[in-house]
């Protein structure tokens, strides 16, 4: 007789379930130190080994006290909005038995603030001035200035076993030179560090001392993060039952949806990332910072073609998103009017996307002084005397670069070449080496670059990384790579970040005004976000994804061996 389902079996005890196995399509892990981690693979492992100060509620997706895996049981904010006081739980210890205390939070901040480490978390310092640990269960943060987005900049604060780190590293700088596995063996989470075989896999083992396990025990024996070199093979291995759960490759979402009929547990959520095209408005031949040392604006020149806002708007009108979505995104794309994702509380459903309107695009380009001189659709428009920044006779040609190897981006490049070509814009689309692309983008020597923007979770539109003000326009060292500078936008964003009491309605109003300005100015084309389709094997019990938090309760999953 066949046993139907796992119900008939005994429930496995602590650590008796089969291991969770996930596919790692990215690179190897670079570090097990949360202060230094900046790549997705390292972060995936680190998230499972270290606690956070604050965490997101799995229902509301907002920061909330007592979230699983986090330390703060409550917090209070002072009247002036400058002091945040967190109370920490006392029922949790590092895997070597040492209690987790406020000193562990302070150490992480001090390391970031020291400037000695190669950390990517320095944006925390935009908001946070100091961290004090008056007693083991209290952390006091002082801000430079009131900020409604402070929690999103506090959330990524690394919490590390200070006793171990202080002993290992005589100076903060010493951690830059540490061995890959120097840290990580003292952890706090559902897992302890097992082993790492770079190029092959990372393994973690069940840690039964984890207090937040939803089933009261960590059921899987361990957790394996296995490198797979090719996505096609990875997907076939998932279909062969080798991975506990996996995401659909871009373009194959429908195939994965169809797996539901075979008993696979399919789940969808809106991606926390978007695909953008950055349009450089400053002179790419002479990249400059936005501000000089005393805070005065520097003349950065103008991009001969993209410097004119009418050209940038024409690009938007000439863009046929329906075609992009069908041809390149498998119908999973979601068009955006601003960089704020539909899942955000600040999202403005009223803000309209640019309609596909070729006549409007042509009119704007005519107004901008780029005319079709020979009525041959195969040749681009030519700049006349009326063009703002282009020498007369300059053809309307721009280069769009993206990284090679992303098939959806390549398809978008091909489609845009024909769509913009129809408006007389000669698009030179090229897929190039990723490092070269990054150097062009951050060095501000590009015309247009297509890449992805990943958002933090939970995210705030006033977060430090989404800051398109001149302060952030630093060659090779800033997020405002397009050299966007609109004082009105900067002022609105600053106001929204300092609304007294951080009243959400008031903030939304200010933010949405700012988004509307950004929509008019088009410093970036926020091309699309997508639906993400993931699926778990039919025999995994307890798989209960909430939005993008697919593995929030993984410690209680039951995976038959």
């Amino acid at each position, binding site marked *: 007789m066949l046993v139907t389902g796992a119900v008939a079996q005994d429930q496995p005890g602590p650590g008796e379930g089969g291991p969770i196995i996930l596919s790692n399509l990215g690179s190897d892990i670079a570090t097990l130190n949360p202060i230094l981690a900046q790549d997705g693979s390292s972060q995936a492992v680190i998230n499972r080994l270290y606690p956070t100060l604050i965490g997101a509620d799995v229902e509301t997706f907002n920061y909330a006290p007592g979230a699983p895996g986090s330390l703060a049981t409550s917090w209070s904010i002072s009247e002036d909005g400058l002091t945040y006081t967190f109370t920490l739980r006392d029922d949790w210890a590092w895997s070597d038995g040492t209690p987790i205390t406020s000193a562990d939070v302070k150490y992480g901040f001090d390391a970031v603030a020291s400037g000695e480490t190669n950390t990517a978390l320095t944006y925390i310092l935009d908001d946070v001035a100091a961290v004090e640990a008056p007693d083991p269960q209290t952390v006091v943060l002082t801000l430079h200035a009131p900020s409604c987005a402070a929690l999103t900049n506090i959330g990524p604060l690394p919490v590390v076993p200070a006793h171990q780190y202080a002993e290992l590293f005589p100076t903060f700088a010493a951690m830059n030179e540490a061995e*890959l596995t120097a840290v990580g063996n003292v952890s706090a989470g559902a897992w302890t560090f097992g082993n790492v075989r770079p190029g092959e896999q990372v393994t973690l083992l069940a840690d039964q001392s984890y207090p937040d396990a939803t089933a009261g025990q960590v059921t899987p024996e361990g957790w394996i993060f296995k490198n*797979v070199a090719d996505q096609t093979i990875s997907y076939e291995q998932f279909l062969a039952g080798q991975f506990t759960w996996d995401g659909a490759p871009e373009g194959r979402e429908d195939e994965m949806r169809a797996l539901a009929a075979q008993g696979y547990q399919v789940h969808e959520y809106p991606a926390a990332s978007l695909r953008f095209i950055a349009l450089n408005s400053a002179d790419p031949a002479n990249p400059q910072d936005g501000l000089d040392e005393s805070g005065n604006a520097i003349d950065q020149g103008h991009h001969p073609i993209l410097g004119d806002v009418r050209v940038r708007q024409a690009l938007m009108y000439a863009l046929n998103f329906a075609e992009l979505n069908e041809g390149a995104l498998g119908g999973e794309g979601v068009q955006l009017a601003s960089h704020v994702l539909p899942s955000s509380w600040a999202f403005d459903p009223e803000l309209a996307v640019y309609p596909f309107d070729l006549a409007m695009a042509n009119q704007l380009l005519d107004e901008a002084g780029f005319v079709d001189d020979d009525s041959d659709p195969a040749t681009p428009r030519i700049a006349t005397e009326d063009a703002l920044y282009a020498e007369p006779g300059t053809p309307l040609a721009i280069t769009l670069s993206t990284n090679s190897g992303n098939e959806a981006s390549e398809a978008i490049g091909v489609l845009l070449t024909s769509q913009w070509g129809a408006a007389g814009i000669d698009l030179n689309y090229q897929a190039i080496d990723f490092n070269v692309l990054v150097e062009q983008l*951050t060095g501000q020597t590009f015309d247009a670059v297509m890449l992805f923007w990943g958002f933090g979770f939970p995210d705030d539109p006033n977060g430090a990384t989404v800051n398109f003000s001149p302060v952030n326009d630093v060659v090779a060292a800033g997020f405002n790579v397009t050299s966007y500078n609109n004082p009105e936008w900067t002022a609105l964003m600053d106001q929204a970040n300092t609304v007294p009491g951080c009243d959400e309605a008031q903030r939304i109003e200010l933010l949405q005004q700012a988004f509307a300005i950004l929509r008019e100015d088009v410093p970036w084309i926020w091309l699309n976000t997508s639906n993400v389709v993931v699926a778990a094997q039919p025999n995994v019990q307890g798989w209960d994804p909430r939005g993008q938090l697919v593995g929030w309760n993984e410690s209680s999953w039951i995976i038959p061996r």
Partner: protein
Amino acid sequence: MARYIVRRMLQAIPTFFGITILAYLLMSLTPGGPLAALYFANPRLSPQDREAIGLRLGVNDPAPIQYLRWLIGDDWMRWDSDGDGAADKSFLIPLDVNEDGAPEPPGERYGVLRGDFGRSFFNNRPVLEVLTERLPATLELSVSSFILGTAGGVLVGVLAALNKGRWFDSLSRVLAVVFDSIPGFWLGLILLLVFSVGLGWLPLGDRCRTTLDPSCPPIWQRINYMILPVFVLSVSSVAVLSRYVRASMLEIISHDFIRTARAKGLSERRVWFFHALRNGMITLATFIGPAITGLLGGAVITETVFNYQGVGLTIVQAFGQRDYPIVMAVTIYAALATILGYLISDVLYGIVDPRIRY
């Protein structure tokens, strides 16, 4: 013979320098250097931070200095002569590179010539450790493909020559050309789809079963994982070699000394094995050198398709991350393997062809 080998080893020295200089030059000319690769996620890194990291990795100096540091270390470039812990003497490089008023710390690298291969830029692990982890996978694939490829190639070639004009000859010649004409990635994918996805006879890639224990069991317990990748890697060797062996066998048969041997009354079998085969081995000797390089080069695609993580994948990933120390180490490994391959091939010549004297 020993003298010859020593002479060949000595000749390999300028080759070694040529390879390493060329490799380092190409790498440092490549746009998008290690800092862009390492810190793309962090565009907020200030120019000062960048400078400091570049200094630590040793990539701020001009390429010739970088090469020298990699080759023979930098403890003689900047050192501490009075024992106070701070560098006070320097040669070739300035004491204070970033001009912040304080001299940089003394050099601590010894260079590959003194056994110091350095550490990976990406994850700080000693390069030799990374390489020794990756080597077994590559060696087990390439050695078994090499053995199967040469043995199969000689066997098929000899049998084809013996059966000249019969069905085996025709079939093997057709198959040899067919398998030599298929793109490796395509062949691998088709084999996986047929034998792993469709029939379920063989595992879907990987080197061994994924378990919490990261080490793979001994090779004889996971032959099934090796069948497809070894087939893909060796099939073109069989194809190429069998054609050469067949041609040279047929050519030799028509030669005078075989006729003489036959005339002396030697049996057909003796004629074949003691004269013809030995001469056929010369073909093999010619083939071995390039075959070793070819296996290393072709392995990347096979390693990717079958997720068999060896040095081929390592060098591709390391180049993507601009991880100079790893790239250089793999290059040296491949160069040594090739030099060794050509040496073996030359020595084989001497053994099988009595006319060649060293």
